[in-house]
């Protein structure tokens, strides 16, 4: 249920994200999802990749600052109001979300959630109208 997310610290410099993408590409690592959070000086690139351990290793070798955190990934119907139902469930149970990002394709939408309390979040999501995605699916 828990999925490992790789975060990379990048300075706000042209081409930095591309360098990350190139390195991963060279090592045959696929990015399933990513998002970038930034402020004036730096950004944090958060990614779900096909091989976290390997990605972490190659990026570290290339002198990137990396960290691995566990997140939860769910899929729900790509229709109006679907996400809201899921989030309602979390809000009712007082689960705080640090950040989230999402992408959709066809009938399904996938959402990555980084809650403060991961275990509690997973427990609640299991009773929500959505499917939790396991690691094996993402590797494909």
């Amino acid at each position, binding site marked *: 249920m828990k999925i490992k*997310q790789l*975060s990379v*610290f*990048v*300075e706000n410099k042209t081409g930095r994200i591309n360098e990350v993408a190139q390195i991963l590409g060279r090592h045959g690592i696929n990015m399933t999802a990513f998002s970038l*959070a*930034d*402020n004036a*000086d*730096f950004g*944090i690139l*958060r990614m779900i990749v096909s091989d976290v351990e390997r990605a972490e290793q190659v990026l*570290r070798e290339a*002198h*990137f*600052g*990396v*960290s691995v*955190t566990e997140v939860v990934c769910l899929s729900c119907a790509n229709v109006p109001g679907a996400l809201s139902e899921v989030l309602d469930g979390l809000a009712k149970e007082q689960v705080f979300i*640090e*950040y989230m990002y999402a992408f959709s394709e066809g009938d399904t939408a996938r959402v990555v959630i*980084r809650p403060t309390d991961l275990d509690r979040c997973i427990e609640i999501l299991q009773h929500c109208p959505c499917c939790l995605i396991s690691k094996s699916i993402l590797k494909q």
Partner: protein
Amino acid sequence: MIWNPTKECMSREDMRRLQGERLHKLVERVYHNTPFYRRKMQEMDVTPDDIRSVDDIVRLPFTTKQDLRDNYPYGLFAVPMSQIVRLHASSGTTGSPTVVGYTRRDLAIWAEMTARCLSAFGTDCNDIFSVAYGYGLFTGGLGLHYGVEYLGATVIPMSSGNTAKQIKLLHDFGATAIACTPSYALYLAEAMAKTGIPREEFRLKTGIFGAEPWTENMRREIEHKMGVNAYNIYGLSEVMGPGVSHECEYKDGSHIIEDHFLPEIISPETLEPLPYGEQGELVFTTLTKEGMPLLRYRTKDLCSLTDEPCRCGRTNVRMSRIVGRSDDMLIIRGVNVFPSQIESVILEMEEFEPHYLLIVDRVQNLDSLEVRVEVRDGFYSDEISKMLALRQKLSARLQSVLGIKADIKLVEPYSIERSEGKAKRVIDKRVLQ
């Protein structure tokens, strides 16, 4: 106007004789009252009787800022505490600050010498001074304050900060003179222009600037923007405070108050005295100070001296502008900053790599300090807020140690140059010319 012609226009011969007599008395005082100096002199096999003229000064030991720290707080005082009436302490330094103690007579001399400076700047009892140096442990505020009172002029004890109020009072009180750091003067001048109040409504005519190195270009800029005649005043807490030397109407070097402070220029490498005209490290011996007299205090400021008579009629030795430092100390917004202080803060924090780069610049006429650091592996986070908290933690610690705010920039691993030898840790973009 020359405030004290007897002392300021003394013949070189008389001055040397006076300095010789005072030096002898000073050495006797410290030999008998300051164990630190007695020990040093005994090690060098010198007794007070060996010091008869200014030429004998080369036989005396040097004093450094480290000596002051090692003897923190009162170890170098030459009188009992019952005779000390005021304490000042230097701005941020690694470890202990340096403490200076003044007797009543020291304060009287300080006020008189500051009045000499102010008089040389063309001000008198009709002037209204806004003293915008910080009041407190720093010698700038109170030093100028009592000098203005001694002169008989009016003092507005403004202290630093709160620019809007500064401008209002300069305007409403009809201040004719202002004393502050040159970088703050530039900042203030721009803020004054932004208020939209016509410059004619201000009565400012004299600016007294010091506590940090500045340039002829800055002088022109301040004079142009603020409409004042800008003068340099030099001093350092360890020796006395502001007023150790000052410019006159000719602005051709700063006159040293030589009857109280004996200047020398030495080579910072060999410590040998250098002749007039040569550039080296400025050294002062406090001839008349009672509270904390110093023998051959190494200022670390680099400049040259001249004993050519000045057109103003003063005969005392003049020092050139400070062209640099013989150590790595930076003066940022008037505050002394040693890269080693920043280093020690970073080294104490496990969240950061021990590599850093300091970038000093002047942005909108105010000194800025940027500290670039790398976060240590294991402390990177997926959350912006956690990274910002890391930055804030370092920022707060630096501010408490340095006394000024630094902009922290987190940079990627290995982006700061590693080097085996002497790493370049400081980039000072401020141009002093």
